[in-house]
């Protein structure tokens, strides 16, 4: 019964979106993690999604989604001249992560909406299967 595949598809969507939410939380938590060198500074991380294809039959559409990797943002870090800061380097600079709070918030809303729509799909599929079990009664 192909209807059961909907659960796999929706579940893959849920796990991809929750990983994305996890990354957003990590970015926001580290938004103020100051460090003394550019190499050590936290950089905003974004997930990379990819559609899963049926290996046996690549023409077969209806696929789930998976997170294939995480990329670090290459936006410039924020360097500030603060010689009194305990983490300042020899030249008196500190480095702040390149996390953009506004972007992260917008991303968070988008991720939670996507998560919700996958939950709705799962609920509808469950209702349909329950109705199918009651067929003929």
């Amino acid at each position, binding site marked *: 019964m*192909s209807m059961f595949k909907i659960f796999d598809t929706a579940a893959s969507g849920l796990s991809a979106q929750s990983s994305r939410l996890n990354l957003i939380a990590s970015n926001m938590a580290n938004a103020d993690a100051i460090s003394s060198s550019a190499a050590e500074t936290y950089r905003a991380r974004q997930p990379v999604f990819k559609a899963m294809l049926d290996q046996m039959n690549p023409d077969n559409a209806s696929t789930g*989604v998976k997170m294939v990797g995480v990329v670090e943002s290459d936006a410039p870090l924020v360097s500030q001249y603060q010689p009194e800061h305990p983490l300042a380097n020899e030249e008196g600079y500190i480095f702040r992560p390149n996390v953009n709070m506004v972007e992260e918030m917008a991303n968070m809303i988008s991720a939670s909406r996507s998560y919700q729509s996958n939950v*709705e*799909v799962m609920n509808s599929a469950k209702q349909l299967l329950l109705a199918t079990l009651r*067929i*003929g009664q």
Partner: protein
Amino acid sequence: MQYAAGSSSGSILRLESMKLDQAFGIHERALQLRARRAELLAGNLANAETPGFKARDFDFQKVLKQEMSQPVKMSVTHKGHVQMDAGMVSPAELLYRVPAQPSLDGNTVDPQQEYAAFSSNSLEYQASLRFLTGKIQSLKSAIRGD
């Protein structure tokens, strides 16, 4: 076996010629296609934010008409040959959705549109189920004879 002409034997003959797998008519096929379409739309929704993903769907009426007029059956002449499952849609029938507004990452999923299609498809699935239940109940009452 020979049947004598008569009203009772006539009904026996008719029951015998009616195959049970054809008893449900179009609704059985429709239900399988609806299930397949639900699966496809769920895939579109799961990939709502996958860069480059192209939303797919099929023309339900066209595929159902095709299935009813001439069900696609592949000839099986070897034990390794695979017959297409019931409710399967051939890749040629899987079309790509034309996006209402283009997106930078090449994704053509419009979640609102997909969700609307998913909801109406579920409703139609339930309608097919209702028809099937009606057929089953009339068969049941024919068997009971009351």
